[in-house]
């Protein structure tokens, strides 16, 4: 069941809703049988947390049950995820909001107590936030190609929000693919990294769209490219990295993705009920508005496709981590 959002017209939409309704009535008797827990493997207040709370709020209506958000932060996202992987009594009613931390964490942390693919079922990709390659307004580089050419003999500093963040790994991926000379400069979160970028202390960053969108609009930062597969509707004039085509960049597609996963003992009826509920949530206007504010797009993959996506993502980051010398 491939879902392309731009293609949903009203008829298909109502059809899907009918389908969703019939599935949820069919399985409502078995799942959910109580409160649903949504584990957020990050601290309150971050993007993942805000997003999860929003989704939980909407899921409440769709599932007609209480959805409790539980923060289990630590060590990237691996502590919360490790807890879910252990299963236990509530595993049949526990979900987790996975993000690039899931795959990057597995790529850079040694001896994880769980298998990032086999221990989980992959329900649905909920939202995708593209990263944007930005340079300060004062930067001489007007395009990605100009930047790469300059970076062949000049060392470029790129800021990121912490080792293993999607921002960091995007930079490392860019460095590996294009053979540019780049130095990663770590900051404690995107907020701390922004002044260095605005002030011109670092040459470039691969920041999340919501962090830099207003600065791009105000002209303080210049967007050279977005990292997603297609151009972002919010920055339609900015090319994607993959469409540039030179310097191996056709392989550069990455987003900060967020999706729901569960322990692999998660019941089949729950799996179906969740997919139906998420389909419903993702068509709600509140959800679409929220996605728009983040400069994000609703998720594209679910089920097996989502799982394959995670496998590919993991393989890619493992390679990048190794090349960058981050893996231990």
């Amino acid at each position, binding site marked *: 069941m491939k879902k392309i959002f731009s293609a949903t017209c009203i008829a298909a939409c109502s059809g899907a809703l009918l389908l969703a309704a019939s599935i949820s009535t069919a399985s409502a008797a078995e799942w959910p049988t109580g409160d649903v827990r949504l584990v957020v493997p990050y601290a309150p207040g971050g993007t993942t947390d805000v997003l999860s709370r929003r989704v939980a*709020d909407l899921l409440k209506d769709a599932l007609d049950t209480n959805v409790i958000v539980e923060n289990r932060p630590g060590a990237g996202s*691996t502590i919360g995820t490790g807890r879910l992987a252990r299963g236990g009594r509530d595993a049949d009613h526990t979900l987790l909001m996975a993000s690039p931390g899931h795959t990057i964490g597995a790529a850079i942390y040694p001896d994880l107590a769980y298998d990032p693919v086999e221990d989980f079922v992959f329900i649905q990709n909920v939202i995708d936030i593209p990263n944007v390659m930005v340079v300060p307004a004062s930067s001489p580089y007007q395009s990605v190609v100009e930047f790469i050419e300059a970076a062949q003999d000049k060392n470029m500093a790129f800021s990121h929000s912490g080792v293993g963040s999607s921002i960091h790994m995007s930079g490392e991926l860019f460095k590996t693919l294009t053979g540019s000379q780049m130095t990663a400069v770590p900051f*404690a979160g995107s907020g701390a990294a922004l002044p260095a970028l605005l002030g011109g202390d670092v040459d470039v960053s691969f920041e999340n769209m919501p962090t830099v969108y207003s600065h791009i609009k105000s002209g303080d930062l210049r967007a050279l490219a977005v990292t997603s597969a297609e151009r972002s509707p919010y920055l339609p004039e900015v090319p994607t990295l993959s469409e540039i085509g030179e310097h191996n960049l056709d392989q550069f597609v990455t987003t900060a993705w967020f999706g729901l996963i569960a322990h692999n003992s998660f019941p089949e009826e729950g799996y179906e009920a969740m997919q139906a509920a998420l389909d419903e949530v993702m068509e709600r206007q509140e959800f679409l508005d929220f996605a728009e504010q983040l400069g994000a797009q609703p998720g594209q993959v679910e089920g097996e496709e989502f799982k394959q996506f995670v496998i590919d993502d993991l393989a890619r980051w493992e390679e990048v981590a190794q090349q960058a010398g981050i893996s231990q």
Partner: protein
Amino acid sequence: MENLTEVLQLFLSIDNFIAIALGVVIGVTVGSIPGLTATMAVALALPFTFSMQPVAAILLLVGIYKGGMYGGSITAILIRTPGSPASACTLLDGYPMAQQGNAKKALKAALFSSVIADFISNIALIFFAAYLAKIALNFGAPEFFWLICFSLTIIISLASGSMVKGLLAALLGILLSLVGLDSVFGSQRLTFGNYNLMDSISFIPLLIGLFAIPEIIEFYRKKAIPHIKAKASGVGMTLAELKRCMKSIVRGSLIGVIIGAIPGTGATAAAFISYSDARRRSPNKANFGKGEVEGVAAAEAGNNGVAGATLIPLLSLGIPGDVITAIILGAFMVHGLTPGPIMFQENLSLIYALFLGIMFSSLILLVVGNAAIKYFSLIADIPKSILFPIVLMFCVYGAYAVNNMTFDIWLMLAFGVVGYLFNRTGIPAAPFLIGFILGPMFEDNLRRSLLISNGDMSIFVRGPITWFFIAITFGSIAFAIFRFFKDRNAKLISN
């Protein structure tokens, strides 16, 4: 004129007043419970603001932030349990005051200086935002590095008694702060493969462990002192005392404003810098750390001065300086507003309505704080044999609540034992805490500077801001050495 009516229309809504009042009440309550931080409360309140009007929504969150900043001081003073990290400095003098039967005075001093600092901070936000934002943008890694170096010199003035012990404490703090993943390479440092340590040692369990638990251990270790049936809460603060502290409060507020305007330093550092500055200048220097009302006032002024000022980079640049402002940024975006220069052009009325609300929140803080003191100060009259077991329970729940991990309870009790040993051997806990907070900032900014400059050391002297902080860093050290010899000479002469 047209603008003014629009501003008033936006501001004069009953929702806004309810939001501010509710926010401050929630903030003070949550802030005063160890382990529950204003950050948590703001994050939890965020979903409720989705359906509110933007002004009311932001004011609710700002109210919680400000209330939380003050609320932390209540338990710091009464039971030596800092409700929030920033109030750790308040307890240095606040708790001794409460022990001497001046709980109410300490609480009032904390409240008044909080409100005054808050007010000054708001003024700075409203009138000097553009100017301060410019400073913030010029504050890169090397400037930060020197600011941290300067902040480290306050250890000298915090090391009451023995300088050697103070420095040892600070070094131990730095050492423990380095546990976790290396910020540049991601390699493990002293984690011993333990996943719970990879995000470094959690701050709040450490804080509670270091300050609250030793009191409890000591109480059960010591010979029982018969409970004296007397009103321990004491009297409030006199006007003369407030006047005496005024200079320190204003200076502390300004320190808070500057630290707050620079993203990423934090209220805790501001509180300690303000405290040590007040101590350096005060005629009652010897009384600091033993229950000096000026110490409480200076610490609280420093940490509350930050609150309004952190909104400066947020509103004028769209840069969140800490986690709370990051959440507030999220709230703006949920309502389709993007803080930054554009907002000043497109939504000026809304910004001024917010400013009015923020000013009003200082007043609410005064009222709510006064009411809180009335009831909270009764805690000082509860016999310790009843109070301490309940405090311990709060500490355990609070330590768990930070990351929802039992490991943090272990950590808290372990630091309790460390704190107890510190007390027994005369090693001061405050420099340890400073080392723990500033250690990673020192290292990160040093390495960040070198990464930016590609190893060129000249980046550390690249501009007037670096020179300014180099000058005050060395000035501060020179002053301490001068002081040391002067005191020694004075002692020799008197002998």
